[in-house]
């Protein structure tokens, strides 16, 4: 369980649509369990959502929605589809779209791995959105928290990994990694790493 610095009884349970007031109370390190609907979106889906005109709006309201950076492994077809493995993909690839996505649709939360850049961080603060880290590479564990495939959009056009999969989850574990108050675990880690690196590289040896 990626419940973070907290014990299980400190974990916050959340379901979409998420409200900005509730999001703004969260701080980095907080363990979260999500239930309800989440929507996968990777590079192609981000570009589509950001560029979509008023007549190409996605079929569900994304205000307060949870966007998951993930390209799942799906078995079966049609109503028989099930999610075999579904961990987070590297969020940084979506950095060039994420700020516009969050601001355009008033997204509630982003789930991913590896963290995001300054433009996204600004959007989180402006809109009241949170970035959640799910345990990277834990595709099998996380897929068991996905109860069913609700719907899929752009499957033919984008292919399975890049399609927008609407999934119903139960107790999906994540941790607040970048909050809506300007806090970022990744910034703390990167700063510590950079300082350690400059010590290791300091005196040219010999």
């Amino acid at each position, binding site marked *: 369980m*990626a419940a973070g610095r907290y014990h299980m009884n400190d974990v916050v349970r959340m379901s979409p649509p998420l409200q900005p007031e509730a999001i703004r109370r969260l701080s980095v390190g907080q363990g979260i369990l999500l239930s309800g609907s989440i929507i996968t979106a990777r590079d192609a889906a981000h570009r589509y959502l950001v560029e979509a005109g008023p007549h190409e709006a996605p079929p569900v309201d994304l205000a307060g929605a949870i966007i998951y950076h993930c390209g799942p492994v799906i078995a079966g077809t049609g109503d028989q589809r099930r999610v075999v493995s579904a961990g987070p993909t590297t969020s940084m690839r979506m950095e060039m779209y994420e700020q516009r996505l969050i601001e355009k649709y008033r997204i509630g939360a982003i789930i991913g791995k590896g963290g995001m850049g300054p433009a996204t961080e600004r959007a989180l603060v402006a809109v009241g959105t949170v970035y959640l880290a799910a345990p990277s590479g834990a595709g099998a564990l996380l897929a068991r928290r996905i109860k069913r495939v609700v719907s899929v959009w752009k499957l033919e056009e984008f292919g399975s990994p890049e399609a927008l999969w609407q999934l119903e989850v139960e107790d999906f574990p994540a941790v607040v990694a970048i909050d809506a108050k300007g806090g970022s675990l990744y910034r703390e880690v990167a700063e510590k790493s950079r300082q350690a690196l400059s010590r290791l590289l300091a005196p040219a040896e010999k």
Partner: protein
Amino acid sequence: MDLIQAIVDLLGKAATDLPTDIEAALVGALEAESEPMPTSILESFIENIRIARRERRAICQDTGVPIFFVTAAHNTSYEGLMDVLREGVRRATLEVPLRPNAVDVLTGANTGEGVGSGIPVVYFSQWQEDYSIFDLLLKGGGSENVGATYQLPRADLAAQRDTDGIRRVVLDAVNNAQGLGCPPYVIGVGVAGTKDDACLLAKRQLLRKLDDKQPQAGLAALEERIHREINSLSIGPAGLSGSTTALSVKIGLHARHPATFFVDVAFGCWAHRRWRMRFGRGKVSYE
């Protein structure tokens, strides 16, 4: 036994079952960890490995690009083997299932069947024996994206053309990677006189078992030192801090040209899916 079926089984095993040395190293990292955040992340990794193995689910949804390093029996036809490997990947994509990961660059369309131009990647060699060895890596996109090639010298890193220069650029690559490629990493380093050879040599280091010791004492000491120093960066599991950032560092050296000194750093994610299959003499075995 049918070779195509053996290849499907090898791909399925690689996607769903982590090698024991990698799992043991993650358990060791968990035992060595004292902070709650990396402890809970490592626990979720280990639980994930066990769920994947028990339920035959892909460990990670990115089932990667299959990279085959083949040492073929003396009577193997190259063309025939390529057909077998492509058919094996096609079938495994449906049957395991794997995620279809081959995308046409011009059209942007996913081929949908896991194979495409140049996918799977195959490095073919042949020997005089009457059996074949298939070393397979399922290489995910996240760890591949953080790989880096350096040309020494690099003044900004004070990296000269010596072993300390190698150390400096490897540390720089890991610091740049942070948590983007799913640490704790398995690090492969290749040093050579041409860029392509350095890249391939680095990739080949990812095939080595974690306890595989360098015969050259000086090189083994360099690997250990870089490993220790990477861990002191405290990037940690999933890049959210912690005492283990790399599970191992393996270095391969080739001779270089007097004017060139290429260092390539290849990253394997913590879910380092590598298996070896021996096929021939009526037997199939995995290690």
